[in-house]
């Protein structure tokens, strides 16, 4: 379509002599796919079938004039970016202004200067071809990102999986997952251990967008290969860290919290690689108790060691995990921080899982803009 030989041009003019003049001129310029129409109605009728790449349009015509035809075709989304080059003997500034106001692309005055007209036709065809390329590229990027996003969502446990976990272990999991762009650097997972315990982890890669998302696939694959977290979350993180150190370019890293809920013991055992502080509370508590998230991020230092820590989680107890987007919301000159988030959590601490997340998210959005991937997980011991 970029070459003159392929370009399709529609000439709309009521004067047959003018049309033949333009046809001859275009022919000399190397344009062979040219169609003629004798007024606006005829022009509109031929658009569908001929699918032009450019229109040469006269203004003063019987039945439907050029202004009207231009207005009509611009109202149709298919012709919004079609170049319309006006060629007219109307030459007052107000005529030109009116033509542009109804959507004309360019304007040449009659009598036609052949060289100038051909030059303008070529310029507009080139622009159209570039625009098409850009649109095609944009559409492809969009559809690939949408596909990648659905693949990333499939890394997360399905609703059916969460239901069966609740039936098997009496632990309900409610989750919110919202990447800040099409793709995100967060993900989370759960695994049922044979003795009624539940392993859970939450990962947040540095940065966001495509690069961070690719890293989530990497880490997910490694997590699947490794034996379950079992009773040693610290060793699990140290092993993951070693694997990631060889893979990630310097300056990229992940924060991660990995832990095991032990219902028999009534404890959440966990280890943290610079994750946010986990929060737990039991029925009757006024406010959540904060754990300790400190630890070297994954992927920076292969010899890094992690600490095993624990929090009480009796029957009815709840565990709340979240990515740092939730505490990095700006508040005045500072950020919300863990204490600010804990205060919001306390407000909604007794609500049902989905209502808890909805109310908390509404509070967070009301606090300030959230400009990173946000994941929030609430685990509730039903028994």
């Amino acid at each position, binding site marked *: 379509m970029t070459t003159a030989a392929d370009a399709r041009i529609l000439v709309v003019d009521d004067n047959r002599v003018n049309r033949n003049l333009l046809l001859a001129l275009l022919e000399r310029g190397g344009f062979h796919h040219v169609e003629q129409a004798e007024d606006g109605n005829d022009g509109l009728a031929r658009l569908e079938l001929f699918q032009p790449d450019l229109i040469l349009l006269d203004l003063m015509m019987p039945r439907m004039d050029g202004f009207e035809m231009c207005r009509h075709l611009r109202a149709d989304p298919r012709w919004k970016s079609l170049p319309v080059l006006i060629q007219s003997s109307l030459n007052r500034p107000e005529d030109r202004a009116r033509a542009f106001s109804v959507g004309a692309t360019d304007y040449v005055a009659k009598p036609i200067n052949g060289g100038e007209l051909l030059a303008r036709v070529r310029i507009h065809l080139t622009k159209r071809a570039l625009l098409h390329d850009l649109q095609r590229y944009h559409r492809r990027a969009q559809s690939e990102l949408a596909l990648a996003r659905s693949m990333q969502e499939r890394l997360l446990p399905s609703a059916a999986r969460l239901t069966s976990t609740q039936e098997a272990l009496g632990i309900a999991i409610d989750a919110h997952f919202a990447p800040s762009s099409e793709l995100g650097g967060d993900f989370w997972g759960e695994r049922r251990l044979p003795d009624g315990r539940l392993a859970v982890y939450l990962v*947040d890669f540095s940065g966001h967008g495509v690069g961070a998302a690719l890293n989530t696939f990497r880490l997910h694959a490694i997590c699947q290969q490794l034996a379950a977290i079992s009773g040693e979350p610290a060793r699990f993180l140290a092993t993951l860290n070693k694997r990631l150190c060889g893979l990630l370019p310097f*300056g*990229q890293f992940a924060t991660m919290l990995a832990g095991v809920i032990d219902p028999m013991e009534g404890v959440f055992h966990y280890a943290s690689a610079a994750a946010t502080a986990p929060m737990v509370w039991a029925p009757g508590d006024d406010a959540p108790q904060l754990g300790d998230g400190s630890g070297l*991020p994954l992927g920076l230092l292969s010899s890094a060691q992690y600490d095993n820590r624990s929090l009480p989680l009796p029957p009815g107890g709840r565990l709340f995990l979240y990515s*740092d987007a939730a505490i990095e919301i700006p508040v005045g000159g*500072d950020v919300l*921080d863990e204490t600010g988030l804990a205060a919001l959590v306390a407000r909604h601490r007794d609500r049902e899982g989905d209502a808890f997340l909805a109310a908390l998210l509404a509070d967070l959005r009301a606090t300030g803009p959230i400009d990173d991937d946000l994941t929030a997980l609430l685990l509730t011991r039903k028994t």
Partner: protein
Amino acid sequence: MDYGIEQRDRDDTIRLRGRLTFNDHAKLRALIGEMKQAKGQRQTLDLSSLEFVDSAGIGMLLIAREEMTAVNKTLVLRGAVGQVKRVLTVAQIGKLIPIED
């Protein structure tokens, strides 16, 4: 984020101001380039006027350390306060880059 540089024979201090985030990648790259060219053997990032750092910002500080090590310079972080101090503490960055109060 913006910054100012103060040079003193073998010791350069760069004061970072504002927020250090994902969006400052190009700027920090340029700064690291300047630090590599600088005369001082010891390059100190003064963080006392830095209000906020996100994970990408931490990543860039780690890249700065790596680049300084490659040209036999020492990187030191100084004076972090508020959220910046909390993030450096939680991520135990002191194990990788010397941190001064």
